[in-house]
Every structure is written in structure tokens, then in C-alpha cells.
């Protein structure tokens, strides 16, 4: 689980071009959107692509996105629960 969280942070920094940040700047329970990392709607779409491309998980219900992408913790848990 801890390795997955680090991997997610690295992927988010790389794929979302957060060049000012390192993995140490992102806490596991930081809010990814809004006042946390300040991600936007395009970033949300990139997160969906990361789940699909790198973990083979498709989000069938967009309404769940808000919960899944709340933090690194919630993303990692969702991946653990859903990947084959």
C-alpha cells in the first residue's frame, strides 16, 4: 500500500505536470482538489486516464469520482479494492 501511494504521487506529478512539487510535498491525506493541491477539471480527467491506463480500472459511475479522487489515501484504497 505504501509503495502504491508513492507510485501514485510520482504519476500525478509527472502526468499532471506539477513541476513545482516533489512526492514529499504531497501528504497521503491532502485534498487533491480545491484548497489542497488545487487540481482542476482537466486534471480529474487525467486521473481517470491513469486509473484506466496503468491499473486497468474504468470508473463506470462518474459520481464516485469525487470520493475516489479525494486524496492519495482514497485513490490507493480504490485501486487496491478494484484492480485484478
Amino acid at each position, binding site marked *: 500500500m505504501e509503495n502504491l501511494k508513492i507510485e501514485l504521487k510520482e504519476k500525478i506529478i509527472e502526468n499532471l*505536470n506539477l*513541476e513545482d512539487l516533489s512526492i514529499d510535498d504531497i501528504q497521503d491525506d491532502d485534498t487533491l482538489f480545491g484548497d489542497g493541491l488545487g487540481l482542476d477539471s*482537466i486534471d480529474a*480527467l*487525467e486521473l481517470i*486516464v491513469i486509473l484506466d491506463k496503468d491499473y486497468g480500472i474504468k470508473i463506470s459511475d462518474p459520481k464516485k469520482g469525487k470520493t475516489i479522487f479525494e486524496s492519495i489515501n482514497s485513490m490507493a484504497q480504490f485501486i487496491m479494492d478494484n484492480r485484478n
Partner: protein
Amino acid sequence: MDKKLYIHNYCKIKNNSVNLNGEIIYSDKETEMTVFLKNVYHFLGLKYAKFFKMDSLSKIAFLTSEILVNNAKITIKETNTAVVLSNNASSLDTDRKHQKSISDPDNYFPSPSVFVYTLPNIGIGEISIRHGLKSENVFFVFSQYNETVHYTYENSLIQSGKATTVLSGWTNVDDQSVDVFMYLISEKGSIPHSAKELIKLYKN
């Protein structure tokens, strides 16, 4: 009677050099365009995280506009500054990246953050967001910098009262090649606004 207009200041970026009003303010020997653009960003001391999310065309337009606005003796206001840009390659540099991501049906993962930049005028949007502009704007695709159209359009915007300042110019990015010539047009300045002066500054 028509207002007398001037090229308030101008900035050119080409061959890894940044030239402001005829003087080189930054240059390096970096071979990767993306790294060069990042170097210019750091040289300017900017703090704008969204810069790193932009494609190269938007980055170059953004950086050049920052240099011009920060070195201007006029105020850029929300509704008075029109933006007129043009280039030859449109958004081809980013279009290729998008095409690459959708060319393999078995590995079909288009990137939303790449796709949103597959239009050349997105750079105008980035500049407008940065300065809160709610003004006239247009992006032309020409075979080469067209000083006559630029002059006519810039002049018309100000003479008709649509704007008091025009941020304008040529922003071409293709593969590793960058050719930028941007300027501010206003009633303040020393270089008369004319097609002849524009092409002279571009080619000089």
C-alpha cells in the same frame, strides 16, 4: 482624426535567445525546446504553476507576454487590451502529440491535458487568464508573418475604440523550432506603428 500609434515595446524569441527592444536579455545553448522554455521561466523569476501544464505554443506566448507587460510603461487593463496572434504551424506541435496517443487502437489513451491545447488560440486564453482580460482577440494562421494584416487589424482595433492597447505578433512553434515576435501597440512609444516598421523589427 486618427490616433497616432506606436510600437510601445517588442520581444523576439528565436535561436535560444530572448531579445527585448533590440537587446538580448537571455540566451542559452539548450537543445531541448521545453527545457529552454523552462529556463526562460526561471530566468524571469515567475511563480505561476499553471505554466507547466501549458503546451509549448502557449508557454512561448505566455512568456513573451510576461516580458512585454512587465517591461511596459502602460497599464494592461481587463477590457482595454486586445490580443492578436498569428503563426504558420497552428497547434501542429501539440496535434502530433495527440495523434501519437490515439494512433494505436490497442493502446488508445488520449491525454485530456494534451487535447485541450490542440487549438492555436488557447495561448490567447492563457494570456487572458493571467491578466484577467475580457477583450477582443483573434488568432490567424498565415504562411508567414503578415505585417500588413497585423498592422491593419491592430490599427483598426484602437481607432474603432475596441481597445486602447494591442498585444500582438507572431508565435510559431514547430518541433524544436521557435520563432516569436510579439509587441504592444499603444498611443505611447517611440517607434511609429506601421507595416514597414513591423516587418523591419521582425526581420532585423
